[in-house]
């Protein structure tokens, strides 16, 4: 199988795009199509999904070859193993934690948690700087967003005795 892959990046992009096109087409199928003169909500998305699928196929095909590949180009490899999985996970987790915590915990704790979790993503993590960063950001967001811009947000949420 892999011997027909000329450019793994193109193949992966192509597959991803085709998958997304299929997904959008499947979603659009449940929508009323209407006719060209009075297009329903599903008409344009369906056209676009078809177009997207076509483009994805082109990308996929350009990455394939009939001749077995001898040497691989370094720039065309995806290099999954070298992806920064830990930072990616931690930064995403930080954002999600903020979203989950903002209502029940309030701005202070969720901001502190989000910043602290992000600092863990760096290889040069140091506890003191991490705590300092979290504290600075909590203070800063309080000053700018609650005091300055008057966002209707408590520093401490209902779970922590706030309102």
């Amino acid at each position, binding site marked *: 199988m892999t011997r027909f892959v000329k450019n793994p990046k193109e193949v992966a992009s192509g597959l991803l795009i085709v998958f997304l096109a299929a997904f959008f087409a499947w979603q659009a199928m449940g929508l009323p199509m209407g006719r060209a003169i009075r297009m329903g*909500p599903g008409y344009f998305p369906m056209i*676009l999904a078809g177009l997207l699928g076509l483009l994805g196929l082109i990308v996929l095909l350009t990455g394939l070859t009939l001749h077995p590949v001898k040497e691989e180009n370094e720039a065309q490899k995806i290099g999954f193993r070298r992806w920064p999985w830990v930072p990616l996970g931690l930064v995403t987790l930080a954002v999600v934690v*903020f979203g989950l915590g903002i209502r029940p915990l309030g701005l202070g704790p969720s901001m502190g948690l989000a*910043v602290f979790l992000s600092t863990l993503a760096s290889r040069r993590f140091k506890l003191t700087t991490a705590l300092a*960063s979290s504290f600075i950001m909590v203070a800063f967001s309080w000053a700018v967003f609650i005091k300055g811009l008057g966002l209707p947000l408590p520093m401490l949420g209902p779970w922590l005795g706030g309102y």
Partner: protein
Amino acid sequence: MEIFDNLALGFSVAITFQNIFYCFIGVLLGTLIGVLPGLGPVPTIAMLLPITFGLPPVSALIMLSGIYYGAQYGGSTTAILINLPGESSSVVTAIDGYQMARQGRAGAALATAAIGSFFAGSVATFLLAVFAPPLADLALKFGPPEYFALMVLGLVASVALASGSVVKALAMVVLGILLGLSGQDVYTGTPRFTFDMLELADGIEFVALAMGVFGIGEIVRNLEDEHTRTVMVQKVKGLLLSKDDIKRIIGPILRGTFLGSFLGILPGGGAILSSFAAYSIEKKISRHPEKFGKGAIEGVAGPEAANNAGAQTSFIPMLTLGIPSNPVMALMIGALIIQGIVPGPNVVNEQPSLFWGIIASMWIGNLMLVVLNLPLIGIWVRLLTVPYHILFPLIVGFCCIGVYSVNNNAIDVFTMAVFGVVGYVLVKLDCEPAPLLLGFIIGPMLEEYLRRAMLISRGDPTVFFTRPISATMLGLAILALVVVLLPSVRKKREEAFQE
């Protein structure tokens, strides 16, 4: 002279204490964040967008424009001082600018960049004032088919002029349009792509998408190779240019301004293209081409003038047609929409104080850049040395609260998290996320015009090719695609972007 009346109106709006203040804050914040390593104009604007929501539309747009050129200027500063261009259009500045800095002429390079940018910005602003109203008048005569064709042309051109694979970029545009269509359908109220979640009924929040892709995704990408970057910044001195320097930069600045003003109007990488073009022109006509790459002041002056002129004239299609030519303009259009203003040719006539106020403030903002940046350069230099591992958690925090504050809704925060991952994956697969953002912004308008056009034509799709203006525009779009996809051109294009 109508234009002077209009400019007078503009200045009367821009020179109020409030608007000068927001312009100042915008330029200051823009520069401040722009000089931080790893942050170009797009994430800077995306991050600061929520702050402007509470302001009246004019002030918000004035502040955002200020942020834009502040960030752009900040990018040049990092390019010159530490060879780290904050964005692609200052890549060229880094070539000779950094060499000048290493020879102890950092001050001269920065001053050249500032003067070039200011001159180019002033000229381009004037061009904007002259050409925008007639263009808007012309656009007012457009019907839905013409609009549809124009948007298609804009999208295709931005893809054709950008670097990287054209097919992938087109796919990103289409994906962006699909994402942009999410939420309730305007005509029937049917929810689309909302997965039965009530929170998504208004569609995917544009700020969340922009911040996710360009903010969070970018952070992960920077964490990828977290090498210990030892930043060596020399003390900046000698901001004054010698007579000889001034003589040498006049020509490049004039040529750069001209080139940038023209290329900036084109969709796609106007600013990038113009700075590259300006550099190669200067190198070609120079009597000492061997000095380029070794600290030639002309190599800083030309591209800096060009990219600033391009940045300014890229406002023309945005303000007159409502069509973004690059991601920054897409963010601006998003800001307009959030402010309740429908972008398009009507802005000039229905909101003259907004339109002319923004134009006048551009000039003031450019002046502020010079006044503010040269004396404060010491502070910016110190900011440059802030290590990334300290910086990025703060950016994450700022993005979180910023995106939450848009609607006070946690769903936007989760959306941002999703698009952070999406943005990272796309970049890793060499799919440029910028066209996705353009498609996302244009998507709803595109569908609207398509539907209206089909209604007028009674369902006959040939309407796009029987009306001359729309036929011409679609023809140009097809031509652009064919040309870019031709194998011979494709090779040359790749070479051009390699340089």
